[in-house]
């Protein structure tokens, strides 16, 4: 039996490559800007990650505050548990989205953000309703808290697996007639479509480099982990930086860094250092658990498992099948972007994507991390798993956790399931070898 590859634990602290440090600084800087928004005379738009209209928001000099990202950051810092409990004490059900409860619990406790800095009250809630019904209720709940202008940008679900002209026209009309005039009113800044075009050009540049980085995982060994590491990579582009020169620079630097790793045949960087050797290549469906993020990741890299593609890194935009923000059609491209994010895609489209990832990235199989409080992702995942297995012939497995509620992360259970899954992959491989041996023997005879 081969020895499991191990991360070379050279450092006591969490190991980070330079792009991670840069990314961390960008996010921290953004939280600082948010905390001083009032003093600096900046207005703030709260909005969501999937289908976010960052380029448009920037056209009005608004700062972008993302409650989902606040929840993620609270989860990573182990603060989300108390916020979730706080929201439940206030009457929110134990059954509903824990991002929502994190947000409401955090507000109830003074709205101090994950970096320990006061978060500002939003001047406008830009409800980009893409891919998740909960968003709609979440922003109605926030409107109740803040009593500020709320803009609803309704994105139809692409249930038939296509974007129709009727959907696109509807979105463009909403942008022209509702979103832009209201953002002008709130911000006091007149809309300039050429400014939007410039931001969109920047977006497309960064998107090119992000796609290159994510697709570098097609190499063996993969120089990146496209799920755990991927979460750091998508931070700037899915958050407050898409359309900025800062993001373009970040993705350019990240690409160069990954190119170096490729040239050196290196595996991904993990919190315990560089991962030597790659034993299992996985595609992962569903968000990660954030309250035990590092422990969760460790369960993978300790076994030599690298995630080569994931659906979660497509929630803020699916770029790897060709979509780029198009400065020549600024409003239409925003519509197409919103319509095309991962959770706005039909289940058959999701199956097709995941099966293509398993094949194109030469993965050993599909792992589903089913999230208790996210029906948008989770309802239907068992069928997704079966379909991908059927189409690829590769084994799939299922684990369950939650986004930011620590009560739903059971390490022993998840570790057991992962170990069983890795054994299943080994058996599948052994079976293939035996089968191949039979064929050869038959041919020799």
């Amino acid at each position, binding site marked *: 039996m081969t020895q499991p590859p191990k991360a070379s634990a050279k450092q006591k602290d969490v190991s980070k490559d330079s792009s991670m440090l840069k990314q961390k600084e960008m996010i921290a800087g953004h939280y600082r800007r948010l905390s001083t928004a009032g003093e600096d005379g900046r207005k703030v738009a709260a909005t969501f990650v999937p289908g976010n209209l960052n380029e448009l928001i920037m056209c009005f000099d608004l700062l972008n505050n993302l409650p989902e990202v606040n929840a993620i950051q609270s989860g990573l810092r182990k603060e989300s548990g108390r916020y979730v409990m706080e929201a439940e004490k*206030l*009457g*929110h*059900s134990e*059954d*509903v*989205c824990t991002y*929502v409860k994190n947000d409401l619990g955090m507000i109830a406790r003074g709205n101090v953000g994950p970096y320990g800095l006061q978060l500002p009250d939003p001047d406008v809630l830009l409800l980009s*309703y893409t891919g*998740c*019904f*909960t968003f*709609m*209720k*979440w922003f*109605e*709940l926030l*409107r*109740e808290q803040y*009593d500020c202008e*709320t803009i*609803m940008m*309704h994105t*139809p*679900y692409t*249930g*038939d697996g296509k974007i*129709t002209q*009727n*959907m696109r*026209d*509807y979105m463009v*009309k*909403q942008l022209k*007639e*509702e979103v832009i005039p209201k953002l002008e009113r709130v911000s006091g800044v007149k809309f300039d479509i050429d400014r939007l075009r410039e931001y969109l050009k920047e977006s497309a540049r960064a998107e090119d480099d992000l796609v290159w980085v994510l697709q570098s995982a097609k190499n063996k060994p993969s120089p990146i982990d496209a799920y755990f590491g991927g979460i750091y990579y998508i931070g700037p582009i899915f958050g407050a930086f898409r359309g900025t020169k800062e993001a373009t620079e970040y993705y350019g630097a990240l690409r160069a860094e990954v190119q170096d790793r490729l040239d050196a045949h290196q595996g991904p960087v993990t919190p315990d250092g560089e991962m030597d050797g790659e034993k299992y290549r996985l595609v992962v469906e569903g968000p990660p658990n954030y309250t035990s993020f590092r422990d969760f990741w460790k369960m993978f890299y300790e076994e030599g498992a690298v995630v080569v593609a994931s659906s979660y890194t497509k929630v803020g935009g699916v770029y790897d099948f060709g979509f780029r923000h198009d400065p020549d059609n600024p409003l239409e491209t925003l519509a197409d972007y919103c319509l095309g994010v991962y959770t706005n895609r*039909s*289940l*058959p*489209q*999701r*199956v097709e994507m995941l099966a293509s990832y398993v094949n194109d990235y030469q993965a050993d199989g599909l792992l589903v991390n*089913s999230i*208790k*409080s996210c*029906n*948008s992702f*989770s*309802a*239907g*995942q*068992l*069928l997704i798993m079966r*379909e991908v297995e059927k189409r690829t012939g590769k084994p799939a497995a299922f684990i*369950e956790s939650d986004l930011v509620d620590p009560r739903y992360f059971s390490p022993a259970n998840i570790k057991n399931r992962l170990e069983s899954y890795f054994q299943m992959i080994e058996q599948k491989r052994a079976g293939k070898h035996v089968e191949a041996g039979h064929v050869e023997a038959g041919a020799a005879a």
Partner: protein
Amino acid sequence: MTRTTAEIVGHCQSLFEDLNFTAARAWKDAVPGRKVIGYMPIYVPRELIHAAGALPLGILGGGDQLEVIHGDAYYQSYICRIPRSTIELGVTGRLDFVDGMLFPSICDVIRNLSGMWKLMFPGVYAKYFDVPQNYRDDIGGSYYVGELKDLRDDLGELTGRPITDDALRASIAAYNDNRRLVRDLYALRIERPWQVPAPEVYLVLRAGMVLPVDEHSRLIRDYMESVEGEDRPMRDNCRIVVTGMFCEQPPLNLIKSLELAGCYVVDDDWLLVTRWLLDDVPIEGDPLENLAAAFLHHSENTAAKYEPNSAEKGKYLVEMVRRASAEGVIFAAPSFCDPALLERPMLQHVLTEAGVPYIAFKYAENSGQMQPIREQAGTFADSIKLWSEA
């Protein structure tokens, strides 16, 4: 011959219990080439299905009589029950006569179920029927007319009977009549809830999910006529509104338990498709435009809709309480129901401000143990009777 109340309710009860949809199968078999289009709660434009000559069939899960065996393999434990029992109905062949399925815009679970249906039953027309959350005629209205046109084309192709404007106008008239009767039934219950008990109202409405619209209209008329002749005692019950039951259906025993616990249900949000449009849809003019305008400006409020005006949020529930002279509200939501459970705190705040008492509990379509619900509802009823200002 006039049927008695017991006969009508018995008929409705047998339709309700029939998970093989015998009545709908018989309707289909009666004329070669007939088609049946299933739909899930809460709203689809049944007028279009009717105008295509097809039978709109409400698929509302499996209730408490269906043992879910296969369906549980498709859903995690933390997902509500209606999708799993609907899958069970599908994989056990109970829906093998259904030619198409419409999945309305209600929540992420039903949304994803539309894709599951496409994968599991590739020969069946399956569509997620989206509706606008923008209520301007020139924005949401135009979009909705476009979606209605697409559905009209699809249904025309499916049935081989393209939908003409005149056919659609006739269908709108039939559904206007049906909605008027439902409104009358609800008005009668507000007036004399002891005369039209909630379990009966539910069964009468529920029959409309499987019967052709004209037959259902006749049934409501017959029922209202028959109950007039019933001698039913008025009990010392309090008057309550039940809300949150718009999707996964409550067990019939749950509704019975509420009345047994001392609560007259004087308004509710059951089977909203039967009264989604609050007024008659005009017959003159473009029928699709008329349906769209009715949807945008004269439709029921529920958690699956966005309320653009913060001052209006939840006011419909207070209105409902006032209109029905109710003394309290019971929030009853299916476990894991995102829309109902996320909406609930906002509605509770509005009720608190309006001074309307309320309680809340959860259920599942197969909940069997009613004692806790009866105790909770009974205590609520007692508290209203003892402590209310009236």
